[in-house]
């Protein structure tokens, strides 16, 4: 996704590349450590589930080559959701040479449970105690040396967000070793595990762990065995498992959990000291206020106002700056040149490659995007997003969206593609379908949201409110309808860790913004140029006029927009930002009035889910569903926009 690769490393032949898997519970800084180790940049943020895909990178530490694998968060080896299966299957199938467990030192206990399970794999390990800066604030002191002595694997302290501890981690990877785990489940259970492990295929790794997962009736481990050894052998294993399971009494889940927890308590008691008293500072109280049903409202509104004002004023200033130093000089230079009219048109005409392509991208869209990315980055790093999820949960629940899906929907305001992929963690098919559809439907992604704000600011704040009321209405309507249409007995329970809020590091946010903007330019600029050229060709061949004539009843009659808005729609097929940039220009030129601007923004926000989003839907839900969703959204956008037009025209005084 959003990554920036350093030059590719080539490995000399006949060198063994060791695999290092970075494993840890969500929001512990795995990706930050991955970035530090590999020198790549991948998006990091302060909410659980930022990373949804595994990433691999080759890196050299001293004279050895390592493949570092970054993974989405994993709570424990007994699986709850789909993105976790991928991580565990990777561990089971690839048997990484080193497991690097990333622990948030300020929430050590939750991670130590996973440590117990990872130690059972008997793979060389390194433990990274990350966020050591948070522990002091929370009044926690961890004796990392004692921890290293007790569990027998290297333990490294780290503050990954500041790049501290990087060299120590590299060194420790070289010294990774198998730990010792003093954890017994009782003779009866262990006998059963060993008996079952003996029946497992000879060439399977982690027999002990897999046997215990089988006994815990983890359905996904059976699937894993079926994929690897074929159904007949998997069926045999299932038989064997059932045989052993029958000998066991009661629910062994409780026993496993109890023993493991006791182990964690013992370790914690030995290596961790806690102050009796800590000062709960501003951020603690602010975090609580931000998700409070009453105090949360002014905080949310204040944040929105900050976004609105900075998008309007800061990007407006940037826009003027670029116009003054780039657009005007270049345009006047070209118009002074003695070129054939065709070439002048191609470059700086209404559909010129420079006017509609380059200047649109750099002059209009880029300033807005940079400002918006910066602010959104601050939100991501501050931890506000998860707190907002809690704050807004009730509203979403009203329309049948469970809490677990709300995080995905909120992420949709950042990037719809990432949000769609994050919906993978929803285990109930109905909830996943609704979430994926609503993300694709009327939620504007960061690029659109930023530009829409800029457009509507020109027309007036009331236009801004009308558009967002309309989009909210569409989302709610769609949510209610889908909820009624799809039947499901199951409902998931919302269990979500809320990260503490903190002041984002400006350096990290600048870096993130830079990479997002660079990605945008790299991905979108060629499309901006090509689509401008395409539109130019349409216009020169007269095709454009023909399309405009054909669509007149729909566009002028139903939606009340000028004919020229067809240019916008055609651009929107290629890139929504390009279309939004053109709307902004039309508003500036005065060719769209109040109602028309509103309708134009609504129709471009809803229609045309971008290619990346449709691809993501295809991956999650299947290609057919993705196409059906896209078509449905496309058609409904025109219907809804037209309806809005008539509503506004009929109710407005003039």
């Amino acid at each position: 996704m959003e990554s920036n690769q350093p030059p590719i490393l080539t490995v000399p032949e006949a060198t063994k590349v060791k695999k290092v898997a970075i494993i840890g519970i969500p929001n512990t800084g795995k990706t930050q450590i991955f970035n530090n180790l590999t020198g790549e940049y991948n998006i990091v943020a302060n909410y659980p589930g930022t990373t949804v895909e595994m990433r691999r990178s080759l890196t050299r530490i001293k004279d050895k080559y390592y493949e570092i694998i970054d993974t989405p968060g994993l709570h424990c080896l007994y699986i709850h959701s789909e993105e976790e299966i991928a991580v565990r299957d990777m561990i089971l199938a690839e048997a990484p040479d080193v497991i690097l467990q990333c622990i948030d030192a300020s929430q050590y206990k939750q991670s130590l449970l996973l440590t117990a399970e990872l130690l059972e794999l008997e793979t060389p390990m390194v433990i990274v105690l990350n966020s050591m800066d948070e522990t002091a604030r929370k009044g926690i002191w961890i004796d990392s040396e004692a921890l290293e002595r007790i569990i027998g694997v290297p333990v490294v302290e780290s503050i990954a967000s500041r790049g501290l501890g990087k060299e120590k981690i590299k060194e420790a990877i070289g010294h990774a070793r198998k730990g010792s785990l003093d954890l017994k489940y009782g003779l009866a259970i262990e006998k059963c595990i060993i008996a079952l492990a003996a029946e497992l295929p000879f060439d399977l790794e982690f027999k002990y762990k897999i046997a215990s997962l089988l006994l815990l009736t983890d359905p996904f481990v059976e699937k894993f065995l079926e994929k690897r050894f074929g159904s007949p052998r998997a069926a045999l294993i299932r038989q064997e498992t059932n045989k052993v399971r029958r000998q066991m009494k009661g629910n062994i889940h409780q026993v496993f959990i109890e023993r493991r927890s006791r182990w964690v308590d013992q370790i914690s008691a030995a290596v961790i000291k806690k102050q009796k008293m800590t000062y709960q500072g501003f951020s603690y109280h602010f975090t609580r206020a931000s998700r409070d049903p009453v105090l949360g409202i002014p905080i949310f509104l204040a944040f929105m106002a900050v976004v609105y004002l900075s998008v309007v004023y800061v990007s407006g200033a940037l826009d003027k700056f670029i116009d003054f130093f780039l657009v005007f000089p270049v345009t006047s230079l070209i118009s002074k040149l003695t070129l054939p009219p065709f070439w002048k048109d191609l470059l700086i005409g209404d559909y010129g490659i420079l006017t509609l392509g380059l200047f649109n991208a750099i002059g209009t869209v880029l300033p807005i995007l940079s400002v918006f990315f910066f602010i959104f980055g601050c939100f991501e790093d501050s931890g506000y997003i998860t707190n907002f999820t809690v704050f807004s949960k009730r509203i979403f629940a009203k329309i049948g969206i469970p809490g677990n899906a709300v995080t995905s929907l909120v992420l949709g305001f950042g990037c719809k593609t990432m949000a769609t992929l994050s919906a993978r963690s929803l285990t109930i098919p109905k909830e996943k379908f609704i979430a994926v559809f609503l993300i694709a439907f009327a939620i504007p992604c960061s690029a659109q949201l930023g530009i829409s704000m800029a457009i509507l600011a020109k027309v007036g704040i009331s236009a801004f409110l009308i558009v967002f009321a309309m989009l909210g209405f569409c989302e709610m309507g769609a949510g209610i309808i889908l909820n009624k249409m799809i039947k499901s007995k199951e409902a998931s329970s919302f269990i979500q860790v809320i990260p503490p809020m903190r002041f984002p590091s400006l350096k990290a946010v600048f870096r993130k913004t830079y990479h997002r903007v660079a990605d945008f330019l790299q991905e979108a600029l060629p499309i901006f140029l090509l689509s401008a050229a395409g539109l130019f060709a349409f216009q020169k061949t007269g095709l454009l006029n023909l399309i405009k004539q054909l669509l007149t009843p729909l566009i002028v009659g139903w939606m009340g927009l000028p004919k020229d808005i067809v240019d916008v729609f055609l651009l929107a097929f290629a890139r929504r930002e390009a279309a939004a940039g053109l709307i902004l220009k039309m508003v500036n030129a005065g060719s769209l009035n109040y109602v028309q601007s509103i309708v134009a923004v609504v129709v471009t926000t809803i229609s045309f889910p971008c290619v990346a989003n449709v691809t993501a839907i295809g991956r999650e839900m299947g290609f057919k569903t993705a196409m059906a969703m896209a078509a449905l959204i496309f058609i409904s956008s025109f219907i809804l926009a037209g309806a809005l037009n008539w509503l506004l025209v009929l109710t407005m005084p003039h």
Partner: protein
Amino acid sequence: MAIERNVEQDEHIEQLWYMKEQGETSLDFLKKTMKRSFDSKIINELSLLGMLEQNPEDSIIKLTADGEARARQLIRAHRLAERLVADVLGGGDLEQIACEFEHTVSLELVNGICTLLGHPKECPHGMPIPEGECCRQAMKSASSFIIPLSDIKLGESARIAYINCKNDQQIHKLDGLCIRPGVIVKLHQNYPTYVIECEGSSIALDQDVVANISVWKNFNEANDEGCHRTADEKDKGGNWIKKVLAILSGRR
């Protein structure tokens, strides 16, 4: 002698209940699991008493409604006893104590213990405890010392007594977040969703999850989120026993 007989009958009835839980109905299975203690005489007696019905042709054996009612009482007493020993009295040989207990206690005492423990739904091994009359009555009985986490006041801390989970996945998930018996949690918020603080992290939970987490009432240990089970608390366990007994004797 008559009592002896009863115990043996009870053992058979219980075994048939376990079989029902596992979806087994064959006489062979009963013989296999009971081994030597299986007694065909007792089976006949129980048949005569109308506790079980047999179909000799396909060797199917199962409890009648009367038999199930008796079994329900026994299993309930057994598993509640296990809960009592595990949660309140601080462990020990669950199985043996529970086995002796189930045959001797009265229905009222079982209901009393059940109420005291806050009507748990599962025994320490995770097997379901059959519902009693007391569970069907108001769960928020004033005398209950264990209440759902959703009922404690905002800003209060409480020690988790036990958790009734929707499914195994949820147990593991909650455990992964350190939400488990013995841990102290603090309720921060109950609207729009519940937010608790547990082992240094804030966790948002749905109503249905919070309602299934049962905590000890009146636990005052403000501002202490990371308390470990220590020797001192075992002493507290002793106090609890006294309280338990006081309540039981007061009720009868």
